[in-house]
């Protein structure tokens, strides 16, 4: 794949854990690639698979949904609801021909800034290897 391909990746981050972890990455002056655009939600349980399909349709090369670890949800088990939905969504994405590396559901607690950095680096590398999703070209086929 071309070296100058800079994927754009959307992150849906739960306010209490993952968003806080992203903040912590900042306050700890960690570094991660600038390709991740965060949309804050109060809970990963708010994330509707429709948004993820919409993101891919608009040109996302990857989507990351990040929530609290099971058992740690600020809303008891919103993250479990996310897990259920994303499990089914993954099957559907596969049928749509979207490689599994492009979509991840990760548990990132407020103290795991380093985990976010690791996940971000991994995802970026994998997606760079895959190349762009090229949704617009697919659309031009009708």
């Amino acid at each position, binding site marked *: 794949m071309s070296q100058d391909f800079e994927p754009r990746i959307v992150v849906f981050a739960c306010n209490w854990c993952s968003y806080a972890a992203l903040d912590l990455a900042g306050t700890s002056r960690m570094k991660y690639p600038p390709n991740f655009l965060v949309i804050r*939600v109060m809970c990963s349980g708010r994330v509707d698979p429709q948004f993820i399909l919409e993101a891919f349709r608009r040109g996302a090369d990857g989507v990351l949904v990040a929530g609290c670890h099971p058992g740690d949800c600020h809303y008891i088990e919103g993250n479990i609801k996310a897990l259920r939905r994303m499990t089914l969504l993954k099957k559907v994405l596969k049928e749509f021909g979207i490689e599994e590396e492009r979509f991840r559901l990760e548990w990132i607690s407020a103290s795991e800034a380093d985990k976010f950095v690791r996940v971000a680096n991994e995802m970026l590398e994998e997606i760079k290897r895959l190349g762009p999703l090229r949704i617009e070209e697919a659309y031009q086929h009708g």
Partner: protein
Amino acid sequence: MSGEPRIGVYICHCGVNIAGSVNIKEVVEYVKNLPNVVEVRDYIFMCSAPGQEIIKEGIKKCGLNRVVVAACSPTMHEHTFRNVLAEAGLNPYLLEMVNIREQCSWVHSDNRQAATTKAKLLIKMAVAKASLLEPLKEITFKVNKNVLIIGGGVAGLSSARDLARKGFNVYLIEKKPVIGGNVARLGRLAHVELKGIDIVKELLHQVVDNPNIHILTNTELVSVGGSVGDFKVKLVKNPRYVNENCNLCSECVKVCPVEVSNEYEFGLSKRKAIYLPYRNAYPPIYVIDSENCTRCFECVKVCPTQAINLAEKPEEIEVEVGAIVIAAGHEPYEPLIGEFGYGVSSRVITLFQLERILDEDGPTKGRLEVNGVQPKDIVFITCVGSLNTTPNAYPYCSRMCCSSTIKNALIIKEKVPNANIYILHKDIRTYSRGDEQLYLKAGESLIRFARYREAPNVIVNPDESINVRFFEETIQEPVSIPADLVVLSVGMKPPRDIDKVRTIVKVGCGPEGFLREAHLKLRPVEAATDGVYLAGTVTGPKNIIESIEAGGAAASKVSTLLTREEVRIEPLIAVVNDEKCSGCLICVGICPYNAIKLRIQGDARVAEVDPALCKGCGACVASCPTGAMQQFGFKDNQLESQVLAAFTE
């Protein structure tokens, strides 16, 4: 608020925190051309008074009806800027914050161009969402004037004392049968002629007679419903099997056939199945340990006051409170068997066991002796369980152990003037007022200090003598010290079942399990959950004085809440569009708070959200099959607009 969106975008430099890695000028030029944006301003500190004025002025001068602030994390200043909007006469929920500091400038400071591009995109996404924001009305509740305090140690007691004096009704619950926590079992304290129990007794003296305080021992939290200002709490009071008629005559203890190790004396003595945990325990009533009781009824037979009832059952108690203070304390770190010889030799004890031994009310009546013999060569090892000393240890400093170690060494010197005392340490951290003088005094008393980096090796010889070997950092030589008593200065760890409590009350914790404060520096006694406060060592190690002060500080915060007649909460909750709801019931089963009920409307049933119960997670919204359920501040179209803006150029 109708009409076309008129958005003002305010970009903060945060000194050089943002401006250092983001080209603010370029961002400003870019943002000017975004749809609906009518004003763009930047300033060195948007959160400062002049910064806030700029926003207010913009709202008035440009007739703004939406505001985007690109600055730090919303967890830091969303509240601040909402107030700014309110003061300028704009609904505070017409604000959208963009995190261009924590999630942009700080993490991309190595790539100015990328940070600038990302800042632009993030602002563009926020502007898109802002265009769709709606004014929201805050939800208000009447504030219940009662408070629940979880934990009867010094932090909880000091909170209870201050709140009761202020006139609030306090429920203080303690899981154990006795009040006083860890402090109650400490011997003489530093700087004063007081023992741990004296502090507890004095605090108790100040609270037990106050009619506003209800102390419930043997009581645990079952569930918490409701929210700030109006919590509905279920408690269970486990049976003590002995009632207030008990006069501590100890007849029961004499006849009880069961003997087990006394955990309140850290295993230094035995107790019966019916027992008083330690001398001077409060309440002064025996307790039966149902796990070990054989139900032989001998105690019942001999009790002269008929105080014992083995048929007692757990009792469910419901209370309604406006605020909750978690003061669940800590547990001393318990070394593993074999760690520094602990559990291998009875001559290796923890600092807490030493406190009991040196206490006149303790198992040896204050005589320094182990196995009946007075030790002379005594080695203290600090940072046991702390500072990653051993693989099992925690990374943090437990704060109180250095002073406590020195204090105990000095007490030993008083009792056994010819004792040879070594304190092995990594650093002596006597930071608290007066403690440095204690350290100096220890030096004058010929207590010897040695510095280690790698954990000392405690070698228990076949003849039971002990050698402590370590590499001394200052003289850079290996050293072996013979010892007939090794004291492990153990640190603090979170209490065993804190996870249960924090899950019920919904408070986050750090990596080691201590509860997380809303802000480490400026909100140290508040949880992120409204109406929940944290006092004492439950947030991390503290000494006694600091715990008592934290109790007071938590009381102060509770008082600021309970003084109000009503409380406002963020209206970012779920809401049903009656026109679209088909009454399919899916949301009802999804809601973790039972906040959704069906209501008959005409010939159909529609879902209805109880705003007092909804916590705003949005799980029902994602589950709603028709889009009838939405969440204020996070509506489908608002989130979708962010996705769109992230990509469309």
